């Protein structure tokens, strides 16, 4: 799978969560205070702070104190590692599902041809039984 298509696959897989919106705003604005983020989001400042704490624990954002204000910004190097790892993991699931598909379809095909063979055998033995019990005029 090419890097471009696994990135597309990753984006497809992105769930529209509140944290995603916080990350989006941080990407757009650079260094931002929780209050400024809350002004642009439909959640409270407390909720924004909680999301930032989760992102901070994940190593995806960092905070800097300027006087009484704390400003948050993205840690691009970690975001990049995360996105690449996620794309890799997503591509791996795609390939595993493809393999499951091949195996199951191959098994289903084998089963259908076994069933077909059984039907043909049953039909053939039915003809033989009829051939043994019916007058010759009725046989083909």
């Amino acid at each position, binding site marked *: 799978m090419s890097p471009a298509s696994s*990135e597309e696959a*990753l*984006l497809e*897989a*992105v*769930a529209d*969560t509140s*944290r*995603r919106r916080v*990350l*989006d705003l941080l*990407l757009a604005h650079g260094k931002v205070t929780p209050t400024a983020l809350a002004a642009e989001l439909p959640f409270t400042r407390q909720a924004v702070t909680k999301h930032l704490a*989760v992102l901070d*624990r*994940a*190593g*995806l954002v960092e905070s800097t104190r300027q006087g009484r204000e704390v400003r948050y910004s993205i*840690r691009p190097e*970690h*975001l*990049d*590692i*995360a*996105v690449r*790892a*996620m794309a*890799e*993991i*997503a591509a*791996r*699931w*795609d*390939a*595993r*599902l*493809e*393999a*499951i*598909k*091949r*195996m*199951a*379809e*191959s*098994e*289903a*095909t*084998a*089963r259908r041809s076994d069933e077909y063979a059984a039907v043909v055998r049953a039909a053939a033995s039915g003809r033989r039984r009829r051939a043994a019990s019916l007058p010759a005029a009725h046989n083909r």
Partner: protein
Amino acid sequence: MCAVIPSQIEREILIEAPIDVVWRVVTEPDQIKQWFSEEAELDPREGGNGRLAFGEGQTFYLQIEAFEAPRRFAFRWVHPEGTKARPDNSMLVEFTLQPEAGNTRLRVVESGFDKIDWADEKKVKYLADHSRGWEFFLGRLRDFAPRAGAARPQ
């Protein structure tokens, strides 16, 4: 590109095979060894344990969260050996099978990525080490594909 971390990965595929065939490929250790890991052991019940080995001593322990034939199979993995899997130390993998006019829609969701500390190099490496399984798997796929391809109706 707007680079954002999803908390989960979701994938699905339509398989032209009955649900019981797909269920066996997904859950039977002998079959798992053909699409996933080099070694596979599974105690197939909710609360059961399992083990997947990917060669080079790379082993993951599974904790089965759901085993409801033929529709749902879920396990936690990536937690350290000997520890109980919890939402904060493991990833959850859920397979869902849905019959569709004699075929099967297979969906897989791996979740828990929002709990990973991406700044912790050891953890990220541990996660990325899944990729050994990936290389192993690609080799297997190449071996398997011509056979499976030959058996498919064209």
